[in-house]
């Protein structure tokens, strides 16, 4: 299927007229002068037998999740902000994966192909619509977390998975953050295939299992025995809060379990939540303060809501990043990363 040229041309003209333009999708309030990509909307290809889906970047995730659910399939990277109106392109550009990515991997592990406008307005792309493709540079991964600063996403292809038959969640009470981290460390090498492992500090752990319905009860029991702390079985609804984090200022932080307790001490009273077994933190703190605090700890983050950023803390990539960026945006039309 070929794309209708008009909406892409509209975005291209706006890009070439502008200069230093941010890109706006679904969840952010319309920024003054932002490049509007909401015209790039719709699922282009979805064959359930292929376990792949291709959609225009401005397609709301809600449309995609609904289409997949009709065939009992889903996005295993569990993208957040579906109810808030997040789009596929915005999710890729921000590089967002949710709690469910603990088991099967994040967005970067499910993206297959991209088409985008580079800084000169050229429509280019890489990857494809099949689940394996080792031909040429991995441009789909380059677009994950590119924050609208390496290209304007036009089209994205992703791999999808069959939906598990059922889920079960265990809420476990650890005594404090350090006890919770120690428990997560024990779980890291245990044979339980946790779909999600979140920590709501100081000590509430949420563990989700999925699979054939009949297996869930015995597995939850075995898990509770292994953990040996007060535990209760919870309803799926407890995960809504993890998917629709609601605060005026919000950042995600790339973390390791070893750095978790130290970061938590430093965050004081700021609201936060940890996911992916201690590899991801969602933090609501003033961007300036968070930036300094992450820098001290050698951590990096992305500001998703609030002014400043978008990158916080330590930046990676150095000369490699600068050279790739120069090739994609020689005239400097996109804002600095």
């Amino acid at each position, binding site marked *: 299927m070929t794309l209708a040229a008009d909406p892409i041309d509209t975005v291209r003209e706006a890009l070439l007229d502008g200069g230093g333009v941010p890109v706006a999708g679904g969840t952010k309030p319309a920024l003054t002068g932002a490049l509007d990509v909401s015209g790039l909307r719709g699922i282009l290809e979805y064959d359930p037998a292929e376990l792949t889906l291709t959609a225009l970047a401005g397609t709301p995730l809600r449309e995609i999740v609904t289409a997949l659910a009709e065939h009992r399939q889903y996005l295993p990277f569990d993208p957040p902000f579906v109810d808030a109106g997040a789009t596929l392109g915005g999710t890729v550009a921000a590089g967002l*994966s949710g709690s469910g990515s603990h088991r099967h991997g994040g967005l970067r592990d499910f993206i297959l192909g991209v088409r985008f406008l580079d800084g000169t307005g050229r429509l280019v792309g*890489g990857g494809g619509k099949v689940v394996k493709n080792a*031909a040429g*540079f*991995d441009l789909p*991964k380059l677009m994950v977390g590119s924050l609208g600063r390496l290209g304007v996403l036009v089209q994205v292809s992703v791999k999808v998975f069959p939906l598990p038959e059922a889920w079960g969640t265990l809420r476990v009470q650890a005594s404090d953050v350090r006890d919770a981290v120690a428990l997560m460390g024990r779980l890291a090498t245990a044979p339980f295939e946790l779909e999600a492992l979140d920590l709501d500090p100081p000590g509430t752990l949420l563990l989700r299992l999925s699979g054939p319905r009949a297996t869930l009860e015995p597995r939850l029991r075995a898990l509770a025995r292994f953990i040996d702390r007060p535990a209760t079985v919870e309803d799926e609804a407890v995960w809504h809060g993890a998917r629709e984090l609601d605060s005026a200022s919000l950042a995600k932080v*790339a*973390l390791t379990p070893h750095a978790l307790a130290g970061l938590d001490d430093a965050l004081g009273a700021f609201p936060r939540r940890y996911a992916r077994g201690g590899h991801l933190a969602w933090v609501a703190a003033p961007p300036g303060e968070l930036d300094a605090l992450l820098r001290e700890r050698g951590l*990096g983050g992305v500001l998703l809501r609030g002014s400043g950023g978008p990158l916080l803390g330590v930046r990676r990539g150095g000369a490699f990043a600068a050279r790739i960026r*120069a090739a994609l945006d020689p005239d400097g039309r996109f804002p600095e990363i």
Partner: protein
Amino acid sequence: MTLLADLARCVPAERLLTGTAQRAAFASDALTSFRAAPLAVVLAESGEEVVEAVRACHRHRVPFVPRGSGTSLSGGSLPVEGGVVIALNRLNRVLAIDRESRTARVQPGTINAAVSAAAAPHGLRYAPDPSSQSVCTIGGNVAFNSGGAHCLRQGMTSNHVLGLRVVLPDGELVELGGGSLEVAGPDWVGTFVGSEGLFGIALEVTLRLLPQAESVRTVLAAYPGLEAAGDAVSRIVASGLLPVAMEIMDALAIEAAEASVKPGYPDAPALLIVEIEGEREVVEADAKTLDALIADSGASEVRATADGAERALIWKGRKSAFSAVGWLAPDYIVQDGVVPRTRLGAALSEIERLSAACGLRVANVFHAGDGNLHPLILFDGAQPGALRVAEELAHEILRMCVRFGGAITGEHGVGMEKREALAELTAPEDLALMHRLRRAVDPLELANRGKMLEVAA
């Protein structure tokens, strides 16, 4: 100062190979139809030595090729005539295993299987399993984003690399990613993995580890034809099961496996191998579903096992299939292409037609779960023109993959072998972007020159 004199300052004399016989040992890789003589081979023992060798090459504007075990099937580690080979096998230490983070930090010359061996005492493993895993190195896996039979559920190399310390083609050092599964900002690690050595050399690699599976079950089913085996795969996918591997072999591939490693496969026109793994209760439940599907799929014989030794034998036959066809013909080409899974049947019919038309036998081994074909084209290189006919057939198969909406390589990479195919079958603007990216990172085109992309000048 000459380049050789400059290199002599990077490593002791016994690790700078310049003799004709010494250099000849590095003239080719697993794609033996290409050969080229390097000017010198540097046997590096530390990251610092690699950096110094790269800087020396850059000063003299001489191309360099990093090399591990030389198992590339696309000619990815072929030397450049008159260039330098930087051999990384001696950088083979597993530097750290972190249980809590489930990561391993390794040097690029570490053998793939050695990572799992080092992780095993911690209850962990490294998932990507190319058929050459007992000899191939992590550096090469990173450069070519290697796959394997189990990437159906676990993903390719790229899905398991979290951090990299890289020397860029001009000798500058950069840190990409880190120890977290989460990435803040652009995914520079993901961009480097699979770049076929064109963006520089990885000096240290942080890998993601997975817990060892509690339970594994492997099912081997024989079918009266490839179509019936392919239908079984479609049913398994439609059932909602998520196996870790689904492999099909045809009669010729089975014959080759039996002639070499004797796995004791049933004598049949087609074999399907399906593996499921996970928590014991889940595997038991999934096994019931799988057994019912297979029982109803027209299989002539079914063997299911959870026994380690039996499973190993089943996989030995599959993983040795490439080298085993050497028993059936003097020469062969291993092809690697991808079609949408639902077009597998049509693709196999087309390969059969093309094979008959040119009179060369083709053995088929493929990752059926993800549409990744590995046709093995048999020929006799001693016959005049036979190589050319085989290459033409290999190319026709790639054209078909693209026509069907697939890809020209699923896991072996472009290397030397598919450079022309990439140029022919990629949209011009996308190919131009690849060249722009390459030249932005390496304006002199020194790093693994001539692989993936034609040289500009």
